[in-house]
């Protein structure tokens, strides 16, 4: 992948994100934020690669710290979102 290919992906994703997120109602903005937060924890992937493949012990240690932080973000974000959304759907009368 070249820088330009990555950039293409970035720009196209931004448009998709804009189109979808502007359709999300205010009611769901808080669960959206915590869910989006969880998605941003995708840096976990980067952490996993670095923690795993670390050829120096410093990189491995840093990778471990990154895995912890990113996992907090992912697990916490999805759970918070899930609890909140189940409150919304309980009363769908």
């Amino acid at each position, binding site marked *: *992948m070249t820088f330009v290919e*990555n950039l293409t*992906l*970035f720009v196209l*994703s931004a448009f998709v*994100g*804009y189109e*979808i997120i502007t*359709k999300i*109602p*205010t*009611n*769901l*903005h*808080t*669960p*959206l*934020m*915590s*869910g989006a*937060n969880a*998605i*941003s*924890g*995708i*840096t*976990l*992937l*980067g*952490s*996993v*690669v670095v923690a795993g*493949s*670390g*050829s*120096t012990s*410093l990189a*491995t240690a*840093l*990778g*471990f710290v990154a*895995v*912890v*932080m*990113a*996992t*907090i*973000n992912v*697990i*916490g*974000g*999805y*759970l918070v979102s*899930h609890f909140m*959304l189940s*409150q*919304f*759907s*309980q*009363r769908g009368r």
Partner: protein
Amino acid sequence: MAGILAELLPEQTLQIVYLIAGILFIQGLRDMTHPRTATRGNLISSGGMFLAVVVTVLWFEILSPVILAAGLLVGGAIGGYLAITVETTEMPQLVGLFNGFGGGASAVVAGAELIDVFSASGSLSLELTTSAAVAGIIGSVTFSGSFVAAGKLHGLVGDSPVSPNVGHVIKAVFLAISLLAGLYLVAQPGLFGESLQTDWIPVYWLLVGAALLLGVALVLPIGGADMPVVIALLNSYSGLAAATTGFVLDNTVLIIAGTLVGASGMILTVIMTESMNRSLANVFFGGLGTGGGGESDEEMDAIYEGNISETSAEEVVMLLETANRVVIVPGYGMAVAQAQHAVAELVELLDENDVDVEFGIHPVAGRMPGHMNALLAEADVPYEKMRELEEVNPTFSQTDLVIVSGANDVVNPRANEDDSSPIAGMPILNVTEARHVVVNKRSLSPGFSGIANPLFARDNTSMLFGDAKESMQELVNEYKEATS
């Protein structure tokens, strides 16, 4: 570097899996557009994350599965514990904290990747150093900024100890240091001759350190009322940090997911700033939240003197009994007083007596986008009863009674009438068009804008002084008695 899967499957498989994960994220967000499908959307999105992580772990030969598993366990336990124990009123600071961890992870990953690549190949490509510098700055600002924001929301962190002007200088200095460090990293000039090869490592950490302090200096002076903007913007940053990490690691799913989050946070930021009639620059570089623009007691007295009519729960119930349509305007004060359950009960009773009752929710009613809606949902208010500003405003002229609980600036008619007021032009709920307005408040003290609210002095407005929870509970009890 190849793991079990990589030996069995063709090279493109990993990219295909990342594509699928990206599609799951997008579909998950699409399902978020309706409350009925939103829970499923959240599950789909987490499925995408699970898939991407598991396949990545299996694909690359993980030299230290123990370390990895330990990291996942520790992080999962902390995240799970926080998510299970959180109160909905504390949601904004928790989302802020999670945000901070995401940003921090990005900054650390970029640093670790620099060390890794350098020790393996002895040189760094321009793309790598550029992306790492960007990820380092954005990630670090997100990390420290989010922690300060969370601390402020939780009441642990006070206001800035320095004056705004000194603050601007401090911000400029830290920004300059981190940008210069970033430039140095990108250009890799041979300042130290042959010793060049090692001196970039401290430079990256200098960049991280300066950006961390920049995050603190940026968020510290911002007032509590502006926190929804800050939280939304930091949300956007953590996404952008993830996307730039994707550039560092050449990882497509990181770019897609990070950009989606960046867009989401940015849109919410714009909605919040527009709802407060502020520009982003205004929020970050002083203005309303930091004092100034407030009115003296004398000025307020001139508006209120002799024009305030006080009411009681009995009188409000009499109004409720004859009303066909009631709108409740909740503010953050209501949530602080934990009055939402009493309010929800009142709404349910009114509903049973065939009164058309709805909530008019201003976008900045809570401490983060949609926060008030989440608080009401927790109190079992059906989401159909929650109306946005644009939906509810045209209906006020046909509304018999508006009950304002714990809100102030968002119903201040001076936003429409007084061009010189600090809130001029801010979209408000036009409650004065209703036949009666009852404002439940502890006192006549001003809201965050620090200005008087002429609504309280209107002929069709009466004040129900008292704690929100007690007042609402009293209304519920009186109404039960009157209708049974």
